[in-house]
């Protein structure tokens, strides 16, 4: 009887005690609703990477990882609910995958001492780590994207854009408006004429904007769109016979979803990127072996190698590497969110390390610091081939114009610091 009671007591303590053997990575996903087509591949890639390192490496530093998924439906209120519901699980880093949710979580994560990674979205000036202690947006942000597009056009035009007309077609939201200041500054610097064409949510009807483009005949169109806005814009561009090679989307307008509906007409469309495309990387062999063949693929397992799947995979790799860095800094395997933040701030991604991880040239090499949470802002260009239905990189990851971007980051973050009485973090 005593033995039985003792066994029960131990079992009860084990059950009631905190789960020590997991590194928790929450995934604020959206697998339902109007933006599900974009949310699913990212969430699948994020989950599959952690499934793979659990099976292949036994987790990170000997500690297994656990992905806690919470459905936001790309809705800001639900995203905040997800954060509140999952932060108690020991969540190490949040990736809200929504600019709206990001804005809500910046003060919350700072107060709760939990880091947040907003890769290629969110508040651009969060790159200033001196002000935004818990928000990171490496390796690139919206302003790097805008600058990357102009740099690409400069390269295409022999370094001279004076007298050129460039139109920005953008989602009429905080996200879509992000590049305007940067493009206005770049317009002054390089002498091109910038026209702004907002598209209201959700963007199913864009006839007015594309009729205007047809009348104004800009040399190039840059698009900051998301969801159905992208597909309609590509179709409308094809309808008015705007040359696809002169049409550049930001990375949120550059997935298979955005071009397949337009069929052959989308051939040649370009999109910026901060990570590589396709599945021709050794890591995908491991995904196949340890995840797909083991029957552990996230979702339907049909997104592997797509642009947004790769983005989720890349985000997971960066999170895992930051966790590994944190373990090294603090000398413990079972890290806390605060330690994770330190790991993110000390993260260095080198080409050698990416090759070691089976992801050579999958993204740019970069280093994060206390002052710079945004990395160097290297962006590349991809192009869609409608025949083979594939995206391919057509430029290397190149620098953006920090001479223009850095003052904007400083100005915006200083305003945020003043509003919120934030002292220097570094």
């Amino acid at each position: 009887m005593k033995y039985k009671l003792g066994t029960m007591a131990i079992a009860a303590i084990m059950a009631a005690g905190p789960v020590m053997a997991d590194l928790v990575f929450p995934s604020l996903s959206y697998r339902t609703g109007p933006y599900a087509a974009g949310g699913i591949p990212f969430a699948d890639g994020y989950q599959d990477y952690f499934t793979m390192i659990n099976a292949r490496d036994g987790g990170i530093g000997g500690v297994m990882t656990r992905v806690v998924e919470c459905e936001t439906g790309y809705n800001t209120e639900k995203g905040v609910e997800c954060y509140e519901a999952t932060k108690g699980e020991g969540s190490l880093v949040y990736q809200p995958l929504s600019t709206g949710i990001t804005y809500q979580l910046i003060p919350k994560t700072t107060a709760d001492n939990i880091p947040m990674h907003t890769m290629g979205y969110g508040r651009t000036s969060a790159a200033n780590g001196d002000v935004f202690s818990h928000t990171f947006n490496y390796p690139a942000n919206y302003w790097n994207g805008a600058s990357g597009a102009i740099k690409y056009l400069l390269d295409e035009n022999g370094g001279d854009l004076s007298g050129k007309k460039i139109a920005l077609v953008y989602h009429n939201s905080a996200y879509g408006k992000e590049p305007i200041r940067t493009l206005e500054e770049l317009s002054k610097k390089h002498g091109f004429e910038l026209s702004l064409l907002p598209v209201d949510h959700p963007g199913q009807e864009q006839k007015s904007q594309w009729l205007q483009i047809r009348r104004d005949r800009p040399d190039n169109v840059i698009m900051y769109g998301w969801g159905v806005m992208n597909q309609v814009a590509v179709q409308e561009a094809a309808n008015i016979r705007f040359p696809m090679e002169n049409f550049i989307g930001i990375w949120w307008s550059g997935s298979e979803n955005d071009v397949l509906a337009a069929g052959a007409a989308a051939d040649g469309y370009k999109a910026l990127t901060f990570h590589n495309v396709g599945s021709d990387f050794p890591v995908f062999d491991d995904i196949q072996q340890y995840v797909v063949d083991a029957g552990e693929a996230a979702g339907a397992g049909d997104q592997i190698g797509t642009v947004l799947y790769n983005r989720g995979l890349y985000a997971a790799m960066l999170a895992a590497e930051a966790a590994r860095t944190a373990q090294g800094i603090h000398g413990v395997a079972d890290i806390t969110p605060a330690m994770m933040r330190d790991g993110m701030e000390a993260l260095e991604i080198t080409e050698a390390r990416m090759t070691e991880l089976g992801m050579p040239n999958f993204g740019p090499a970069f280093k994060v610091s206390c002052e710079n949470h945004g990395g160097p802002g290297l962006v590349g260009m991809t192009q869609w081939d409608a025949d083979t239905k594939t995206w391919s990189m057509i430029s290397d990851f190149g620098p953006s114009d920090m001479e223009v971007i850095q003052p904007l980051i400083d100005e915006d973050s200083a305003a945020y610091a003043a509003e919120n009485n934030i002292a220097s973090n570094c």
Partner: protein
Amino acid sequence: MPEQLIFAMEVFLNGLMAGVLYALVALGFVLIFKASGIFNFAQGVMALFAALTLVGIMNGQVPFAHIINATFGTDLHYFGWTVPGLLAILLTMGMMVLLAWCVQRFVFRHLVGQEPIILFMATIGLAYFLEGVGDLMWGSDIKTLDVGLPQGINETIDEVTFGWFGYGFFIDNLDLVATLVAAILVTGLVLFAQYTKQGRAMRAVADDHQAALSVGVSLNFIWILVWSLAGFVALVAGIMWGAKSGVQFSLSLIALKALPVLMLGGFTSIPGAIVGGLIIGVGEKLFEFALGPALGGATENWFAYVLALIFLVFRPQGLFGEKIIERV
């Protein structure tokens, strides 16, 4: 002719075409509201569901494949055949009739005599239910809809207008087809309502369902008929909008485009839906063209509602709606 006037004419024509597409969505609302007094919040989702079903059938997709695979450990996604567009449309129509029967049998039959707000709330529930079922049946990915509809600039109009004005107008072939389809649809609906027994019964129910009931009209049958017709209209709208953007879950949001049309045209008038759509389409496009740049652009969404509100001030029942007089 001044350049701006020529551009305005092009915008006007494109506004008319956009209005037809809005009207296609509004028609479904009108049909159900007219016959049953229910404002069907689920009309946009019905268009999505119909389009998803159509593409699923055409591509030979296995419905509920994720659930089947997760339950039985199979790896089924496609049957391995494709179905021609016309046959797929007929099969989808069958599906929409089945849906109408289910809606009537399992939802509204139990809500007879309830307040309109209760019925409206039921349609909200129906919208979320249908969206979920659509996701489970066919998945959330964006699907390409190809039923052979032409897209892109109409060369003839481009050439003719270029000859006249020195500037070729852009008119999308898909919009021209939508206009033709809408014309056929409205004519068909009017003829059906005027000259068939079922159509007359439908109108009788719309006028006074208790009186219709007393002369032997089956309310159940009429409501199933009306929901089926709304399902058919939803399918047409789903095809037209789905051809533009691919079939995806944001298709359900097209209902937002129909609301100002209904406010303007009236909730009970089929011609009202058409005229309302045209006024909204032209109004928002011309406003954007004339004042959009000065106001920062993206005026279309809010302007459509402002226009509808202005009409409401002067004609609360809408342009063609029935004026309700209640005596105390």
